[in-house]
Structures are given as structure tokens and as C-alpha cells.
């Protein structure tokens, strides 16, 4: 921790002439070099030969060129942002700064910045944009499903939209809470001045932005037909748009692994004096659990997609049945990543819920150790359940009782979280602020998600529900109802700290109620639709299901409208009205609310010393307590 103390002084703000700022390493140069790299890769791809090239003339598609173009484009983009400056100046023997753009004006938000608070902000905006794009895809999907045959959206574009929606949400939103809120608040919560690897922290963000742009660009190359799962051999059969998917997920996987590594290193090594493991915020515990999952699961995805890219380009046969490979291999590898992935989405939500509850119930967190063991239990078990996605595929059919057991066992640690929520609510003094409403919304949604999951985990029951709208409704309840509700809880809770400004509460409450009602109105009927025989990812369905589909579509549009209320609230409150938030509007006892707003570049003048966990609320033997209750378990 010598570096943190050595760099404690705030650097003097530098003012450079305009031309230096335009020419310097920033987003503008990054985009220029990115485009340059793209065309370089495209050119090289057309010069070299490969086994698939004899077909190129027939298909007018050159996957090698596009993959190389994306690859060099990303490299150019990162160089333009200044990621190469540090290694190059060190190689030339020059002294290199540990900091990049810290304390500079608005420009630091548009480039490589090593201040974890700036990166948190960049994540919030960047992920928000792609979340919006993914949401628009969903709106187009629901528009098409107003009619049982393809009428508005073409069949090619429909499956591409389904794939883009799924991939965007599953890829970008994995960092939905870890990106903005963990990057911003984990160092503060553990009493550190920065992350362990500030440059890697910035790199994870810019990799994700490049990835999001690449995925969106798939529409220029014909889209991709596989959905977010990218199953082989359909993957191999797809047009060039598939390469956008491969590069997107590979970059997301890289970003995830690096983000997880950074979080693990920070939480393990950079805790302030007195911040023992049992005093750690429950949110930090959830980040640690998620980080472990990211580091262990994401590399499998990157490897799998590399194999898929090789199959598509140079003629390997990893996943080619009859060529020595197997489509089962892809399913196995993908879900070995894919199932931990859904817990990567769910776990930070658990953390947010348990972090916010004590503040608004004015009670200590009930069952701290149970909550931690619940999260760690989910982390461990999530690596042993992946074949429940393949119950009807014929793969290792004799092992299904094991996967049924492991899948159902994972609901025990998840149940711990529910018990902690319920225990904290008991005899509480709850104030129903907007973040608290979202927490309560999570409790209901995740309950429905969890209980519907029981049907999917039971192999006989799963036979009918697998691959139908039932499973689609289930995972939207756990991911949208779980992650996105806590994402908004975190926004309403923490953005006043991050900006020093407050949201319009009436609009915020309108957002919550409209979102909660429209969400349930959209996804509850989908359970019935799935049972009635509507498979996932179809733009054609039985005509007798049109009524229910119309209901769902209209609810989905209302759900989309509730997001517009949020955007309007953010623009209106944070840009136009700019009403200052109180220093500690929630009367929280957690450390981030005790330091000044805006948070200084180095967070703390002196590294704090912790003497308790942040949940020191309530009065001993509180009002209404009928008997003294033993502490801890």
C-alpha cells in the first residue's frame, strides 16, 4: 500500500491548449485509430489465404478479414485512448506516471482515466446507453409478436434482434452493477484510495465499449441467427454478422475476467486497518463472490469462442459432428460459462438488496454470516449445475439426477438471502424511499423467478417447459426482476452521492410503480404462453395465442415507457434542475456517506480505521422487542 500513501497529494490541475487536447490521447484519436485498425485488418484479411478461402468467391463473405478488422480496430482504439503510453515510455526508460488524467476537467470522462470514481461514472453512462439499445431491440421484438406471422420485422432481422437483445443484455449487464457501483464504491467501502490495478480498471471499461459497438455493427453484416447462446453448428453456418457476436463476447469475457481479477486483488489486499472480513460491507462480499465467478468462468467463454472462430475461418473441426468434433462440446463449454454467468448477474443484486435494507429499516443486517455463506455457497455450486440447460439434449442423460440435485441444492443458499431480507424487515422502522421500493420489488420478482426455476430444475417438468416462453419468463424474472431492479435501486441510492444532486422523487416513484406493474404484467403471462406451446425466439406462433401476446406486447411498451420516465428524470433532475442532495440523505452509517461530496481524488485525507461493520443501526432491546434474542448464528 506504499503507492497509495506516496500519491496522496492531489496533482495540480493542468490546463493545456485546445490543440493539445484535440491531438492528445482521447476518444477522438481512439475512434480514428480504431477505424484505421479496422481497415488494416480488413486489408490483411483479404491478402492472406486459408482453407476456407476457396469458398470466399462463392459466398462473398470473408470471415478472416472481418475478424482481423475487428481485432486491429480494437487495438487501434485502445492505443488511441493511450493504453500503450505507459508500457512504451517504460520501455524507453522514461519515468512513467501512475496516474492518467486524474483531476482534469470534463475531458477525463472521455479517455483513459485511472481514477476509480471516473471509471465508475463512465461505466454508468456507457452501460446505460447499451442497456437502452438492448431495450429498443426488445421493443422491436414485441412489435413483431403483435402478429402471429412475420409482418413488421423480417424473419432474418427478427432472429438477429433476438440475438442482439440477449447478447447485449447478457454481455453488457454482467458489469451492470460491478462496473459502475463496485468500481466507484468498493475502494471507498474498504478504505482504499484506488483500485489495485487502475489501468486495468479503465481497460475493462473501454473493452466493453468497443465490444458494444462491435455487436451493434452486426446489422451491417447480416446479423446472426443463433441467439445469445451461439450454438454450433448453426454458428458455423451463419453469415459474417456471427463474427461480431464472437468478437463481442470474447471482449466481454476478457473485460469480465480482468474486472474480476482487479476486484479480487483490491478487496483482498487493500482493506484499511480494522476492515476485517467480518466487518466488510455485504455489498463488497457480493462483489468478491461475483469476481471469483468472473475470473473462473469468463476464460472458458473466450476459449470457446476462439475455437468457434477457428472453425469458421481456418477449417478446424472442434464442433463439427462427423469431423471429429461435436456440437455437444460447444453446449458443454458454453453453459460451463453460461450458468455461472447468470449468477454473475444475480449475486451483485443480492449484495445491493442486503446493503440497502439496514439503511432503510434502521436495523442491523440480520444474519450477516448467513448472507455471506449464502453468497459463497451460490458461487461454489454454480459451477456444478450447467447441464440442467441440456436435460432434453440427450447429453449424459444418466447424469441428470445429479444435475437435478445440484440445481435444487443451489436454492438453499439462495434461500439464506431471503431469510436475511425477512429477518432484517422484522419489526423494522421501514421508510419507503425509492431505493427501498426497488428492493421490495426485487424480493417479489426474485421469489417468482426462484419458484418458477424449481419447475425447470425438475427434469420431468422441464421436458415441457424447456426452450419455451416459460423458461424465458423465468430468467427475465431473475435477471430483469433481479438485476435490473437492484441496478435502479443502486442508481437512486448512490447517484446522489456520485453527483451531489438529487432525483425528482415524484418521477422516481412513478418510474418504480409503472416499471413494477408493467414488468409483472409483461412476464407473468409468458409462463402461460410457454405452457401453451410458444417456443422461444420465434416470430411465428399459433394464432390462438395472439390475444395473450398482444397483452404482453402492450405491457412491454409500457415497461419501455417507464424507462423513458427514468431517462427524463435523470436529464431533468441532474442536468436542468441540479438541486443539491443532502450530504447523507438516507442517514446511512456506511463510510461513503461520511466523506465529502464530490469525493476527493484520493477519497480520504487519512486512511480510515474501521471499528465495526457499517450496520450499526437500531437500539439494543429495541422498541417492541418482547424477549432478548441471542446474537449471531
Amino acid at each position, binding site marked *: 500500500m506504499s503507492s497509495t500513501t506516496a500519491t496522496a497529494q492531489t496533482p495540480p490541475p493542468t490546463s493545456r491548449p485546445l490543440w493539445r487536447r484535440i491531438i492528445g490521447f482521447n476518444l477522438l484519436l481512439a475512434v480514428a485509430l480504431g477505424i484505421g485498425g479496422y481497415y488494416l485488418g480488413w486489408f490483411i484479411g483479404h491478402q492472406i489465404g486459408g482453407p476456407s478461402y476457396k469458398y470466399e468467391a462463392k459466398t462473398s463473405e470473408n470471415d478472416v478479414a472481418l475478424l482481423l478488422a475487428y481485432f486491429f480496430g480494437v487495438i487501434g482504439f485502445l492505443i488511441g485512448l493511450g493504453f500503450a503510453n505507459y508500457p512504451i515510455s517504460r520501455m524507453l526508460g522514461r519515468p512513467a506516471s501512475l496516474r492518467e488524467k486524474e483531476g482534469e476537467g470534463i475531458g477525463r470522462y472521455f479517455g483513459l482515466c485511472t481514477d476509480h470514481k471516473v471509471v465508475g461514472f463512465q461505466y454508468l453512462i456507457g452501460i446505460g446507453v447499451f442497456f437502452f439499445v438492448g431495450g429498443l431491440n426488445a421493443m422491436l421484438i414485441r412489435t413483431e409478436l403483435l402478429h402471429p406471422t412475420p409482418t413488421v420485422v423480417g424473419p432474418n432481422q427478427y432472429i438477429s434482434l433476438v440475438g442482439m437483445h440477449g447478447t447485449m443484455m447478457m454481455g453488457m449487464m454482467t458489469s451492470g452493477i460491478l462496473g459502475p457501483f463496485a468500481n466507484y464504491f468498493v475502494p471507498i467501502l474498504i478504505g482504499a484510495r484506488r483500485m489495485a490495478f487502475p489501468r486495468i480498471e479503465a481497460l475493462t471499461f473501454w473493452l466493453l465499449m468497443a465490444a458494444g459497438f462491435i455487436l451493434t455493427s452486426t446489422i451491417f453484416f447480416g446479423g446472426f*441467427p443463433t441467439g445469445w447462446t451461439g450454438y454450433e453448428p448453426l454458428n458455423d453456418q451463419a453469415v459474417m454478422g456471427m463474427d461480431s457476436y464472437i468478437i463481442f463476447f470474447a471482449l466481454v469475457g476478457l473485460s469480465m475476467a480482468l474486472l474480476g481479477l482487479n476486484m479480487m486483488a483490491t478487496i483482498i489486499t487493500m482493506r484499511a486497518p480494522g476492515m476485517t472480513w467480518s466487518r466488510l460491507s455485504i455489498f463488497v462480499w457480493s462483489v468478491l463472490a461475483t469476481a471469483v465467478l468472473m475470473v473462473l468462468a469468463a476464460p472458458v467463454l473466450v476459449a470457446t469462442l476462439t475455437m468457434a472462430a477457428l472453425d469458421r475461418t481456418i477449417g478446424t473441426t472442434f464442433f463439427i459432428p462427423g469431423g471429429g468434433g461435436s456440437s455437444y462440446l460447444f453446449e458443454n463449454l458454453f453453459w460451463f460459462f453460461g450458468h455461472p454467468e447468470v449468477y454473475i448477474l444475480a449475486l451483485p443484486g443480492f449484495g445491493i438488496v442486503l446493503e440497502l435494507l439496514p439503511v432503510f429499516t434502521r436495523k442491523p443486517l*440480520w444474519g450477516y454470516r448467513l448472507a455471506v455463506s449464502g453468497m459463497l455457497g451460490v458461487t461454489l455450486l454454480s459451477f456444478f449445475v450447467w447441464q440442467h440447460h441440456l436435460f432434453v439434449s440427450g447429453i449424459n442423460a444418466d447424469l441428470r439426477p445429479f444435475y437435478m440435485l445440484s440445481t435444487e441444492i443451489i436454492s438453499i443458499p439462495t*434461500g439464506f438471502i431471503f431469510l436475511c431480507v425477512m429477518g432484517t424487515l422484522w419489526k423494522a422502522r421501514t421508510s419507503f424511499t425509492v431505493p427501498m421500493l426497488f428492493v421490495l420489488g426485487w424480493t417479489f420478482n426474485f421469489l417468482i423467478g426462484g419458484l418458477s426455476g424449481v419447475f425447470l430444475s425438475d427434469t420431468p417438468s422441464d421436458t415441457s417447459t424447456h426452450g419455451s416462453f416459460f423458461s424465458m419468463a423465468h430468467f427475465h424474472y431473475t435477471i430483469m426482476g433481479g438485476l435490473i431492479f437492484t441496478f435502479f435501486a443502486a442508481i437512486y441510492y448512490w447517484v446522489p452521492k456520485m453527483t451531489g444532486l438529487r432525483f425528482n422523487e415524484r418521477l422516481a416513484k412513478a418510474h418504480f410503480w409503472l416499471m413494477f406493474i408493467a414488468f409483472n404484467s409483461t412476464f407473468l403471462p409468458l409462463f402461460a404462453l410457454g405452457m401453451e406451446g410458444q417456443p422461444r425466439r420465434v416470430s411465428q406462433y399459433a394464432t390462438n395465442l395472439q390475444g395473450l401476446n398482444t397483452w404482453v406486447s402492450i405491457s412491454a411498451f409500457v415497461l419501455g415507457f417507464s424507462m423513458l420516465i427514468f431517462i427524463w428524470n435523470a436529464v431533468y433532475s441532474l442536468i436542468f434542475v441540479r438541486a443539491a442532495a443532502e450530504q447523507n440523505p438516507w442517514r446511512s452509517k456506511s463510510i461513503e456517506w461520511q466523506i465529502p461530496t464530490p469525493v476527493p481524488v484520493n477519497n480520504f485525507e487519512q486512511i480510515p480505521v474501521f471499528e465495526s461493520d457499517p450496520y450499526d443501526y437500531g437500539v439494543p432491546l429495541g*422498541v417492541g422487542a418482547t424477549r432478548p434474542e441471542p446474537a449471531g448464528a
Partner: protein
Amino acid sequence: MTEPNHARRFGLIWLVSTLIATPLVVVLLGPILPPGNGSEQASGQATDNTVLLAMATPVLLLVVIYLIYAVVYFRQPSGAVLEGPAVRGDARIQTTWIIVTSTLVLSLAVYGTVRLLADNGAGSGSGPTPLTVPKGPKLPVQVIGQQWAFTYRYPTYGGLEVPHLVLPVNQTVELHVTSLDVIHSFWARQLAVKADANPQVDNVAFVKPTHVQTFEVRCAELCGIWHGEMFDVGHVVSGPEFQRWIRRAQATYAPATKLLPPYSTTYQPKPTRRGG
């Protein structure tokens, strides 16, 4: 001001509503739960769904009633800034919770396993060599998925291939599901059968239709542009009617039958990689 005994009151509300709701769910919802009673497998799955629903109802009620109770009674009085009781846990409650949820979950897993094995895969695709096989004579039928249609072969009737599935009633059928190209999934909803059609894989599922009916066939695994169009209507007919239909189909599809390769559990048509 005396505080009511919340624990007893909440417990009572939950117990009463559970005792009312659970039988109601079983009696009212049970008979209409999908996938119905089109086959032995469908009835088995419907029973399964009823059992799961009966087990989920008390849990659902517990959390939902608790949430409502907490929202109604455990509020911050308006304008006040009161603190709640500083309780950090309760060993008894936590232990009880762990024991109860573990028991519930383990019994679910045991129940599911028993049903899966007793029902011979419960209509699911169980790989080339299923662990349990129904007793008695079985009619083998091959389901061939290709982009974007299912066709069906009857190896015991001269390898006849037809575009629509017809099955005899009260006869155990051994479905061999395979694919000629990408992964499809054969889903006969009313018969509660779902089995992925993988290239180069023979995925076996058993089904025994219990009455004469019409059923939907759909593809349940994304297989490209016409995934949603890959649906079809099949028929369950009486035994004698099935024999008549077989004779008619043998005549109708005689020209195609001559073109077919010999019956095999999997096929590898050309091109095996890139076409050209």
C-alpha cells in the same frame, strides 16, 4: 402502547392461508395444469407440476404475506426517525430455516429422480442408451429434423418416411430423434415429449399416447431463419386405423421410399462440411 405478538399473528395468517390455498391449488389448478393427459408421460408431468406447485404455494405465501405484513406493520411513522431493534440474527430461526429448506429441496430432488426413472425419462430425450426402458413391445419411430421440417421414419414398416407423424393409441412408442444438419428440438406438446435433434446423435425418448387426438409438433431449439415455421400437426389414431393409414402411406410414398437410404440411427448426408 403494547405491541401485538407479531410472530404469532403472522404465523397464524400464513398457516391458515396455506391450509386453504394449497388444497385449492391442488384441486382446482391440478387437473388443468399443462401438459394435460395426452399421454402417460403428459399425465406424469402434470402430476409432477401439481406436486411442485403444492410445495411452492406455502413458500410463495410465506414470503408474499410476510412482505405485506412488514409493509403494513413495520413502518417508520411519518416524520419520525426511529431506530429499529438492534437484532443481528437468531440461531434458532436460522437453524430451523436451513433444516426446513434442505429437507424440502432434497425431497424435491429425490421425488424428481424417482419420477424420471420410474417414467422412463418422462418423455424427455434420454440419449442413445436410456437408463430405463419401458417393458413390453415398442413401436420404433425415427424423427428426422432438418432445416426446416421434421420427417418421420417407421423402420418396422419398410423404412417408410412420411411428412406428418401418426401414432397408434395405447402403444409405447420409441422415438429416435436425430438431425441432418444443425440442432433442432422435437416438441410434441400434448404428448409432453421433448428431445433435441442433434446431428450424428440418436436421442431416444419414450411416449405412450393414451387417447385418440391431434397434437402440435414444434421445434424448440433455435435452428435458423424458419425456426418458428417448423411446426406440424400429428395424429394419434386407433390401432386398426393406424394399420390402414400405414398401408395408405406405403402406397402414397412408394416413389420416395425407393429413393431413401437404408434405415440407420443417424445419417450423414453430403455435404458434410462446406457445400459447393
